[in-house]
């Protein structure tokens, strides 16, 4: 496909669309005063990141992202918003500090990062194009499971212990303290 004289693949169009949705939704997460809408926009951002994972040849991670992030974490945040329902009523001026200062600081950091990223020479040059497709790489679900159970088995088990500790700990923290109980 040729647009303005450049050859543009469908993947590139998909990338531009998905990353545009992701970044705009992320700006909404930060700037929308209503925290419930911000949490819902966070869900949209996370779905966009899952789309980027698909474009990076990691479909299993996209599924994990949607199941855990969109399915669990966003739900948990919305539940917490409902449980602390005074958050719903604060206005924009109360919800946010000086946005210009913060945007300036973040913009300076982004300028540094972008200059560094855009001026670096990446492997697979000269055209910086990914050479690995699904055919000639071993990064599928099978490789992930094999890696989790062979070289990374200790962190894997440690993560399960951590999740158990977090489960118990968050119940203990959120439990209502009854005097005398």
């Amino acid at each position, binding site marked *: 496909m040729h647009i303005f004289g450049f050859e543009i693949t469908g993947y590139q169009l998909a990338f531009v669309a998905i990353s545009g949705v992701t970044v705009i939704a992320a700006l909404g997460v930060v700037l929308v005063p209503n925290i419930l809408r911000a949490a819902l926009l966070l869900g949209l951002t996370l779905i966009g990141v899952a789309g980027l994972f698909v474009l990076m040849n990691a479909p299993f991670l996209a599924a994990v992202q949607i199941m855990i992030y969109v399915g669990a974490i966003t739900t948990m945040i919305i539940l917490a918003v409902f449980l602390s329902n005074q958050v719903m009523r*604060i206005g924009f001026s109360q919800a946010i500090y000086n946005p210009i200062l913060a945007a300036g600081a973040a913009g300076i950091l982004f300028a540094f990062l972008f200059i560094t990223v855009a001026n670096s020479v990446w492997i697979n040059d000269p055209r910086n*194009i990914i050479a*690995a497709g699904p055919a000639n790489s071993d990064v599928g679900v099978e490789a992930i499971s094999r890696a989790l159970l062979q070289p*990374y088995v200790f962190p894997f088990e440690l993560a399960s212990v951590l999740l158990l500790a977090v489960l118990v700990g968050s119940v203990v923290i*959120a439990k209502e303290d009854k005097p005398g109980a």
Partner: protein
Amino acid sequence: MHSAYGIPIWWFLTVGAMLFCIGLMGMMIRRSAVGMLLSIELMLNAANINLVAFGSYLKTPVIAGQIFTIFVITLAAAEAAVGLAIVINIYRLEQHIDADKITAMKL
């Protein structure tokens, strides 16, 4: 053109940098603790994008990027659970979750 996808790596890194900076901005301007947690999730996702991008753009793609991303997602779930439990507890004790006004460790 024998490339499968045709997307340069620095596009992904730029999106990751954008998400990180937006999350950083959110950390600085949000007052409520839940809003700060949302910004933390944004920054973690930016890091995940970078990990997966570097893992799959190597000349021989490695699985380590995806594995580390799985661990980051696990830790993010754990962090969100504990953080929101703390937020709910603070709301029950103080009737607000303004991070500036929470100054006491013990109430």
